[in-house]
């Protein structure tokens, strides 16, 4: 199954840990996982757990505009994309979960 996840909240929100654990569990079960991060969610990209998700094969894209607005640095392995990428994920997956 293809799972899509949207994350819009900052790292102190419990959504961050939920997204990390759901993504890990889904990958361990062999599912494809794509995450789109926007608004204050972009502050999550420097967390080591997200780098670990990339290493586990999770596709992560962030809104480059929100990154620029919040002056967050780029991170290897994470696509600094746009709402087009968000739309592609939503169109492509079997299930889509929004954490906002």
């Amino acid at each position, binding site marked *: 199954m293809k799972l899509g996840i949207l994350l819009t909240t900052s790292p102190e929100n419990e959504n961050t840990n939920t997204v990390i654990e759901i993504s890990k569990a889904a990958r361990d079960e062999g599912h494809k996982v794509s995450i789109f991060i926007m608004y204050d969610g972009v502050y999550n990209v420097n967390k080591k757990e997200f780098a670990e998700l990339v290493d586990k094969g999770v596709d992560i894209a962030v809104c*480059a505009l929100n990154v620029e607005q919040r002056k967050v640095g780029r991170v290897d392995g994470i696509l*600094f994309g*746009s*709402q*087009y990428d968000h739309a592609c994920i939503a169109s492509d997956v079997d299930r889509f979960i929004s954490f906002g």
Partner: protein
Amino acid sequence: MVIHAGYGEKMATELDLKGEICPYTFVKTKLKLEELESGEELVVTFDHAPAVENVPRSLKNEGHKIMGIEQKADHLWKVRIRKA
């Protein structure tokens, strides 16, 4: 607006998206491309840096061809697209 092309280049329609940010940069480019015939070219002006990276990538994904990206000044780019 139709702009004249240089030697060996096709005539192109021009779209000025200065002042526009994501997602309008992609949406307005896509809408303008819908007015063109296959093979026609569109030159889009951006002053929003993330758009210069993301709009061409998204358009390539849609099957269009990026003929060139030229930086004209600080925070000013022209992207030439050939419609699929």
